[in-house]
């Protein structure tokens, strides 16, 4: 049961001028699963290694339950990190790999065997204890890596892209496994991914990092409804950004005057709305006449490129809804006010 907090955590690698991680501050509540989300190279692994004590921060602090742990050696922190590429010890059997942490703690052999057996069942790999890691599939290796971490009952579990090397089916299975084990054991878990969907499905809270800086730290749905800035919105699949002037109640833009939801900010800003929130047909407010420029059929949905005046709008609609419209012809649309969001 550990509350983790990062305070202005910064890392500048030797020989590099720009920080790979720039003043990251996060509060990760006890027993929660937090996702660190960001594109490749944004500093996710760097952050994890600093929490685990495998890398020394340039500045800033990491505390567990309000106590700084920077001076503690990695083996005394109670943090276990599962690496992106599993890193099972190739010369050991699966069982020895899993028992490694207990062996280092000088737990006796019989006890290790018993617990390895238990955890192999837990990750659904009974009977594979005697194999070498090279004789396992990617998904099985991933589960061994997870078992090797869980067996030492860490206070904090760090998972670096645990699902990225798995195919879609296994990914699904592992996702559920991680979620259920984490909740069962109540381990404070930080989980790295560059896939927003994965973050949303798994995490209690998501921290989005872009270029070494924290952009937004919120519950998953907030990133869709109220993104902090254009970069955040774009990372989550936002495509519509329209500059204009807000009065707080309405937004003046090339699209005309649009009604805003309550509590919108006033002043110069950028209006954003998600492609799936562009509704086909007349509405009670914010109705527009668009021209259909292009259409891509994606199976369960259809992507539309629409033009209103000189402004392009991206929309996603149900294929049945838009089957009757021709490319080049008019399409009536509306933008429900509660789906609009103004960025400063």
């Amino acid at each position, binding site marked *: 049961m550990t509350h983790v907090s990062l305070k202005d955590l910064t890392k500048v690698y030797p020989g590099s001028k720009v920080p790979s991680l720039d003043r990251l501050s996060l509060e990760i509540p006890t027993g929660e699963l937090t996702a660190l989300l960001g594109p490749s190279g944004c500093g996710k692994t760097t952050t994890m290694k600093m929490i685990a*004590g495998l890398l020394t921060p340039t500045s800033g602090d990491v505390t567990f339950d309000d106590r700084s742990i920077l001076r503690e050696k990695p083996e005394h922190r109670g943090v276990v990190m599962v690496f992106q*590429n599993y*890193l099972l010890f190739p010369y050991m059997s699966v069982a020895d790999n899993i028992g*490694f942490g207990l062996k*280092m703690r000088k737990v006796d052999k019989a006890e290790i065997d018993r617990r390895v057996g238990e955890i192999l069942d837990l990750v659904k790999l009974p009977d594979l204890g005697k194999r070498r890691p090279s004789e396992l599939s990617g998904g099985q290796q991933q589960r061994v890596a997870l078992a090797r971490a869980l067996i*030492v009952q860490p206070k904090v579990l760090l998972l670096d892209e645990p699902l990225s090397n798995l195919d879609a089916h296994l990914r699904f299975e592992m996702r559920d496994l991680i979620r259920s084990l984490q909740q069962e054991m109540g381990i404070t878990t930080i989980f790295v991914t560059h896939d927003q969907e994965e973050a949303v499905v798994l995490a209690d809270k998501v921290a989005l990092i872009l270029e070494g800086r924290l952009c937004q730290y919120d519950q998953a749905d907030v990133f869709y409804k109220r993104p902090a800035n254009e970069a955040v919105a774009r990372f989550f699949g936002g495509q519509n950004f329209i500059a204009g002037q807000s009065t707080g109640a309405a937004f003046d833009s090339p699209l005309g005057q649009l009604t805003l939801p309550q509590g919108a900010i006033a002043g110069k800003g950028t209006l954003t709305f998600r492609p799936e929130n562009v509704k086909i047909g007349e509405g009670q407010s914010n109705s527009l006449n668009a021209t259909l420029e292009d259409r891509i059929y994606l199976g369960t949905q259809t992507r539309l490129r629409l033009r209103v005046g000189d402004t392009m709008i991206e929309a996603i609609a149900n294929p049945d809804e838009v089957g009757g419209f021709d490319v080049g012809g008019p399409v009536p649309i509306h933008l429900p006010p509660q789906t609009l969001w103004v960025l400063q």
Partner: protein
Amino acid sequence: MSDRLKIFLLLAPALTAIIVLFMGGLGIGLARSLNYMPVIGLVDPNFDAYWTVFTSQEFYLSFLLTFHISFTSTVLSSVLAIGAALLLRRQFIGRAIINFLFQLNLTVPHLVGAIGILYLFSQSGSFARLAAEWGMISRPGDFPALVFDPYAIGIILQYVWKEVPFIGVILLANMQALGEDYESVARSLGANRWQAFRHVLLPLIFPGLLSASVMVFAFTFGAYEIPAILGPNYPAALPVLAYRKYTDVDLEARPEAMAMAIIIALLSALMIFFYVRISRRNIRS
């Protein structure tokens, strides 16, 4: 053409050279050691030469000395090479220069190194004179015997000086290819520094260490020049003893020299076999 045949044909020239030179030489040596040499009318092979070798006390003393030289040199070089590789894989200022200096003596021939050691460490050498001049010893002759000494310190010094970079370079390449993540995993799972080295890094670099140290062992066990220059006269190292017999004015000693050469070859093969078995069992369990 099947892949196997292709590989065989591609290897054929090299294999031929190896078989003709190595097996041929070994075959002739073996024949000679058995007193078999039809050209001069010796057509009844016998084990007389081996008998003579095995009943002489000098042979056993020589074997002990040679084993001591090889074993000590191999162990010392391996341990120092691991230490050197561990230091050199870290990032520090001036690493490139240190790395270059470290590998520099790979290019120096053994013979040159041995002569250097002779000049520096013998009782009439530079260190002896310096020590006498500074009053640490009353005269150069009091300098501890590091050359021509019964413990073969000079020889071992020379081998270690030469082989540490050899093993070190192999291990360093090995470690750099592995990266540090395996040890990081171990640390995060609760291993301390030593445990991460002992249970993770060492087993990972073990195959490289094993081949390099086997090469060092085989070389130091069979090499002639260094013990000839820096070694004691009696007992002499096995290769030196064999060479002496071979160049003996008494032609009768020739089969004995050959027998000794064959024994040296068999012994190194045998010792390497046990070395590999024992170390494998201990490092990777």
